[in-house]
């Protein structure tokens, strides 16, 4: 095993150790387990955005739509279909993914800043739908009246509703599954092709790669992950919020990815952790939290465009 590989393995073990022990070190540090659960879910969402942004090189600024669709899908399934947690996760993922696949087919016709613009505009559609169709979605108040259900595992039931630690580990398991699938895709020949498109789209085209179709597949996959994360988020809150579909939420996801480091797999999770903690803190001390979040955006763009991990790596490389 080479040194770099060993280092990677150690880092990976450290990440999982930190995540596995989170309920035990977070509380003494003044956090609470639910905060850890939120970081995991939002981190997964940021990783899904980064699947497109960092590894395919196309910027979707409307991914909150698929996140929100996942949340509404899960909520509606729990409320009207059956009180089953796994089913709600599947419905949320399918709703986000299928709608993402349909819209993606239109969206991938544009590239660059116009891709970003079209994704923003299409994302807003669902915000308006959730807002207007209040008989189904609860409108401005959001979708209420559902709760996550205990898991029936044949031998034993696991109460993820009232036991915060049990729920954290359930979310961690879901997160681990999604991250494993994502990592597997990125290592496959398809994942390598995505990176080739990011590095040089024209050359990829010359090699005979159907660029549009690959970007569409990447977009669709990312929407499935996004829908899954959204469904988890609905379970976290027992509530689906129309503001979770708004483009400002998309901006937060992109920011998490950029802040953590777009070029790395784990960067967005780190970014989500930092972002959630900062936002949580600022909104508890000042009513002008919007200004501070805005300044955070400006500051990161001007001072740390490569994100935390990019910054650290660069320091390590120059020393």
């Amino acid at each position, binding site marked *: 095993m080479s040194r770099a590989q060993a280092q990677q393995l150690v880092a990976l073990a450290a990440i999982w150790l930190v995540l596995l022990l989170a309920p035990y070190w977070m509380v003494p540090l003044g956090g609470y387990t639910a905060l850890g659960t939120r970081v995991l879910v939002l981190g997964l969402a940021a990783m899904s955005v980064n699947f497109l942004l960092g590894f395919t090189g196309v910027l979707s600024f409307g991914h909150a739509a698929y996140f929100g669709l996942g949340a509404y899908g899960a909520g509606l399934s729990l409320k009207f279909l059956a009180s089953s947690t796994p089913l709600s996760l599947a419905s949320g993922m399918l709703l986000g993914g299928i709608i993402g696949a349909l819209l993606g087919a239109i969206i991938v016709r544009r590239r660059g800043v116009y891709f970003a613009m*079209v994704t923003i*505009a299409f994302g807003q559609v669902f915000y308006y739908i959730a807002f207007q169709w209040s008989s189904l979605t609860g409108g401005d108040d959001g979708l209420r009246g559902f709760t996550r259900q205990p898991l029936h595992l044949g031998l034993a039931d696991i109460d993820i509703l009232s036991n915060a630690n049990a729920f954290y580990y359930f979310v961690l398991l879901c997160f681990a599954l999604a991250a494993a699938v994502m990592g597997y895709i990125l290592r496959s020949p398809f994942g390598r092709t995505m990176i080739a498109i990011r590095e040089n789209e024209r050359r990829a085209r010359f090699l005979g790669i159907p660029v549009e179709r690959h970007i569409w597949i990447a977009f669709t996959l990312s929407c499935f992950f996004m829908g899954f994360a959204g469904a988890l988020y609905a379970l976290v809150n027992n509530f689906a919020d129309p503001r979770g579909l708004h483009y400002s939420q998309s901006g937060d996801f992109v920011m998490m990815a950029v802040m953590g480091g777009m070029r790395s797999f784990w960067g967005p999770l780190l970014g989500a952790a930092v972002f959630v903690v900062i936002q949580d803190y600022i909104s508890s001390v000042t009513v002008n939290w919007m200004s501070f979040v805005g300044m955070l955006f400006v500051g990161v*763009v001007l001072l740390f*465009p490569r994100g935390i991990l990019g910054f650290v790596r660069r320091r390590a490389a120059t020393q």
Partner: protein
Amino acid sequence: MTQLLLFNVTNGLIIGAFYVLMALGLSLILNLSNVINFAHGGFLVIGGYIAFAITPYVGFWGALLIAPLLTACIGLIVERILIRPLYGRDPLYSLLLTFGLAFIIEDGTRFIWGPQGKPVSVPALLAQPVSLDLFFITGYRLFMVAMVAITVTLLFVLLRYTRLGIRIRAGTLDLETVAALGINVRLLRSLNFAVGVFLAGLSGVLAAGQLGLEPTMGTGLLMPSFIAIIVGGVGSLAGTLLGGLLIGVASGITAVFLPAASEAIMYVLMAVVLLIRPRGLFGEEGMMT
């Protein structure tokens, strides 16, 4: 029924005129500098509030001229300090920066002027309806449309006949060549940004007279402006003009038959245009990137 339809079409045209003014500014900045200016709605709000603040001293007509100019000056400073360092980089960064800036502006106006809306009075001359039958056509609305028409005409004259305008258009097509010909591209981008922000400020002043002032008013107008640009065709200002009016009227007409869908129709229109003609109504083939 006819009157209701007429009422809504007029409404649509007027709101469409706003979209046009916003979208033209956005489009100018997008075409030359490849920057999606998320703070454009913020500049609209700044324009409106500056007009509100200076009207007691300079009157409505003075504010109409001075407020957009001051907004443009603020835009110039913002461009110089915050956006200029990002020109060489991925457009992602300017997008995130202006996104954060929009937050700061919205919160800042709320901090200075309070979260409640501010009523804005227009000169008595403009406040009366033109006729009793067509009660909805007030003098102010006619005035707004006239102002938009004049501004758009002036903008097109500027772009067509002045040296600055010709350089902006040339820069849109090929900035590198323009730079190689010895033109100061940095200055060109700054001036172009200022012109775009001026348009946002002007729409802010005009919107204040019609809708009143609120810190959040810019965000609502931003999305339709994006759609106007996409529908009209990126890179074409004439397309943006048409796109803005089109979605304004479309949402006006939809409001008669299915009020809940009056927002959604714009997105439907955009999806249809992208399906049939991905480059937009007036977009040129070469501008696909």
